């Protein structure tokens, strides 16, 4: 195995193996990544860096390794989306309303990672309350994509909402990161930054301690440099949790093992409704290429239909804001978070705290969500959206009678410019056109980097699996990864001199 020239550009499995071989220490690795993060503030990938804690954890890991007590992620430094509550470490959810919030508890997913020996580098930037597809709604300002188009100095977005995590992985500021995905928030940023992103089946990872956006859709997942890394990380993140009634009691397999074995005989479905008008030719071409790669490795390609796909985006933009409008009611300035000053009564305290604390996109979604749940509108919007959700789910059930995984583009195009879509929310919402269906159906899906546009920007392919069949999409993802040989890296234009 040829190891990367710098410690910071190790992937998770490489670092694990090097630590096991004692050719490096966690402290060395951690220091290199702390430096990388410090040199890369231009990307605005981290909202909070936690170097002291990282060093402390790395030292403890080195001791365990020395005593032969290493756990599966021992000494491996990770970046954590700022939506996961981390005990004693400020957790903002990308919002001004939580700018001073330090949770006295730890999310189950991060606790699982620390229990496996992982090291926390810090909390990553994100769209406010995970609402956005470009990281531009963050109260901390946009994170930037490490990638730039050929011959261009224009800043591009890293996607969203897990944009900071994506930028940190793509820019080699961490070995891997974790994000959350409500409508594409892991897969879309992964695709436009050239990394791997996995949204597990709803219920696979606990939602306890994750600041809620849309409870029936939110799911945590890994954002990594390789498919193997995603498998490794998910194995440690996933658990059934008595503190989350929607987590599911199915044994967590070793996904890294499940990833192996090839795809001979795998039936790969191509949903015809994902061929959308106006999609760039490069996206369609890459999709066809992906199918050809899989076929070449022994898979069978079948055309399938998901007839209700066109209703997915509107359904999502009813269900998600409805739940959000209720989930975000607790940010009222009374017990924690931002509290408006100089108010004369409780109504003014609510109104001013929320008006000052929430950004425009969050306010927009609270308004939409409140509207669709209102008396007289509930049946026309929320109730119908729930029915459509059932139909969308049934589409997948029927498609999976004919295939084992679905292959689709991950995004309608490559990364776009900072500020390009902020004035037009609907064009921003369209970023999720290929990803939201999966959240509505609760299924697992993986985004794998598969190629570059003519302009030199990464594009990803998406693999969608049956519920709790992450193993199969990882296996298919590995096949894409092997065929695509996506070894491209962005130039490190952002690094401090």
């Amino acid at each position: 195995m040829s190891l990367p020239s710098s410690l910071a550009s190790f992937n998770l499995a490489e670092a694990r193996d090097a630590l096991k071989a004692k050719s490096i220490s966690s402290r060395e690795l951690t220091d290199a990544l702390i430096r990388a993060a410090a040199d890369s503030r231009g990307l605005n990938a981290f909202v909070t860096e936690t170097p002291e804690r990282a060093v402390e954890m790395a030292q403890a890991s080195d001791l365990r390794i020395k005593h032969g007590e290493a756990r599966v992620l021992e000494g491996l430094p990770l970046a954590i989306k700022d939506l996961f509550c981390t005990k004693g470490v400020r957790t903002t959810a990308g919002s001004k309303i939580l700018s001073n919030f330090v949770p006295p508890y730890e999310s189950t997913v991060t606790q699982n990672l620390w229990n496996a020996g992982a090291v926390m580098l810090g909390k990553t930037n994100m769209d406010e309350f995970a609402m956005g597809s470009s990281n531009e709604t963050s109260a901390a300002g946009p994170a930037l994509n490490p990638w730039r188009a050929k011959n261009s100095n224009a800043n591009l977005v890293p996607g969203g909402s897990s944009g900071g995590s994506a930028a940190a992985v793509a820019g080699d500021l961490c070995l891997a990161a974790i994000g959350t995905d409500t409508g594409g928030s892991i897969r879309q940023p992964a695709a436009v930054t050239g990394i791997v992103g996995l949204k597990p089946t709803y219920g696979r990872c606990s939602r306890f301690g994750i600041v809620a956006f849309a409870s029936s859709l939110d799911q945590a997942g890994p954002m990594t440099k390789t498919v193997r890394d995603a498998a490794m990380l998910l194995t440690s993140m996933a658990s059934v949790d008595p503190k989350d009634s929607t987590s599911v009691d199915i044994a967590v397999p070793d996904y890294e093992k499940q990833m192996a074995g090839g795809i001979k005989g795998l039936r790969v479905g191509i949903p015809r409704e994902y061929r959308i008008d106006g999609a760039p030719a490069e996206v369609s071409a890459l999709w066809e290429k992906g199918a050809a790669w899989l076929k070449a490795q022994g898979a069978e390609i079948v055309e399938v239909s998901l007839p209700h796909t066109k209703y997915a985006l509107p359904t999502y933009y009813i269900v998600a804001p409805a739940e959000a409008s209720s989930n975000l009611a607790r940010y009222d300035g009374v017990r924690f978070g931002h509290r408006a000053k100089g108010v004369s009564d409780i109504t003014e305290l609510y109104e001013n705290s929320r008006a000052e604390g929430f950004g425009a996109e969050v306010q927009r979604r609270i308004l939409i969500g409140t509207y669709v749940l209102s008396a007289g509108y509930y049946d026309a919007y929320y109730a119908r959206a729930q029915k459509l959700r059932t139909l969308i789910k049934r589409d997948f059930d029927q498609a999976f009678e004919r295939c084992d995984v679905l292959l689709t583009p991950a995004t309608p195009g490559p990364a776009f410019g900072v500020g390009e879509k902020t004035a037009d929310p609907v064009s921003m919402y369209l970023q999720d056109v290929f990803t939201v269906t999966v959240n509505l159906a609760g299924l697992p899906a993986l985004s794998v980097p598969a190629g570059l546009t003519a302009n030199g920007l990464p594009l990803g392919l998406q693999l969608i699996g049956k519920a709790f069949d992450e193993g199969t999409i990882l296996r298919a993802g590995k096949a894409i990864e092997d065929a695509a040989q996506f070894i491209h890296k962005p130039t490190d234009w952002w690094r401090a001199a």
Partner: protein
Amino acid sequence: MSAPASKLIKGQTCDWEVVIGMEVHAQVLSKSKLFSGASTEFGAEPNAQVSFIDAGMPGMLPVINEKCVEQAVRTGLGLKAKINLASIFDRKNYFYPDLPQGYQISQYKNPIVGEGEVTIDLKDGESRKVGIERLHLEQDAGKSLHDQHPDNSYVDLNRSGIALMEIVTKPDMRSSEEAAAFLRKLRAIVRYLGTCDGNMDEGSMRADVNVSVRKPGGPLGTRCEIKNVNSMRFIAQAVEFEARRQIEIIEGGGTIKQETRLFDSRQGETRSMRSKEEAHDYRYFPDPDLLPLELDAAWVAEIEKSLPELPDEKKARFMAMGLSAYDASVVVAERELADYYEELAKGVDAKAAANWLNNEILGRLNRDGLSIAQVPVSAAANNAIVMMISDHTISGKIAKDLLDIVWSEGGEPRAIVEARGLRQVTDTGAIDAAIEKVIAANPDKVEEVKVKPKLAAWFVGQVMKQTGGKANPAQVNALLKARLNLPDEG
């Protein structure tokens, strides 16, 4: 259902029928809250029993407490209601400082318990059925404290998240008496079941009362909801006041506005809180943090098997033992009282035992301001006393004195009777001697009783006095009549 004429309210123009429905909030008896592990103990320091879930902290998730579900099912079964094996928790959204999540988790369209009924017992021994519409589980809110600081309000979240059962009746009650009787009966049932302590002072049971009036048999009138009536006495007062207020308005040519009103117990009146137009839009929707609640029919059957004998069944059994409907309903009103009675009545005449309980025990408890749980004389001791009356060991009069002794000094009744020589005198010689003594001392009365046979009672009293109350009064009576040659029917 129409009310009998006696329950109608007389207006200026005609008689009016009052129609009452109720929503009762009963706090579930359980150690921890509906969706968190925090304690439910009453009286703790403010905010001492608050989990991160109860405080609505970011990322916190509710997890249903199985005990609370069991209690709701138990209550449903006690109300002879349909148990819904599938029910759904919804969010009721509104902003209030004592509602940390910004929504209350409740059950809206699919409650855990459906239709049932409660039989209420009225004064004259008459019974009536009140339909139950539904029972659902929901979280309680915290408490706002407005009297701690001149400018700021404080919030105590100890109650936040405590499980409540909201029990909704059909509009089946027709008088303030029936409304109070319903609440009394509901309280007895949940206390029998052990699902709510029914303590209205601590807010464990609160009622919202819907009141409307109509001409007898006519269409239902517009109702007003009276909030938070928190004592049995206030229920009757609130209904009376509200019915008369509505009648006055209608008879004065006005119309009733549908609104929520608050009962002011100091003024004894209801006051407008908010009108229908100002009512909240709660934006109910299923709580995505909780799966639909699915119950196993076998589990429900197990709970049903474990139900105690409830007041109605107990009452029927007591009536079969010889108690009047009235006595039986008094005795079964509290489970502790009924249990006490059963022990007291062991091996003695059921009716004599009920009379003893109602007249002697309840009278003394009332006098001393005690509840049945605090009664100083055990049921077994009372059983001994009643048994001694029935086998003529002591007289009724002595029995009462004996009870007073045991009540204030304690001790075993039979031992006291022996030690203090309280046994009834049945030796005719001793009684005859006392009679001779009284006759000798009162020759004038002896003449008088010949024309006024009623004076015999005076002689009985005198002889009883002579024997220190220990003589058997019936025996004294018989011997006196024979001695004075009085007719038997005197």
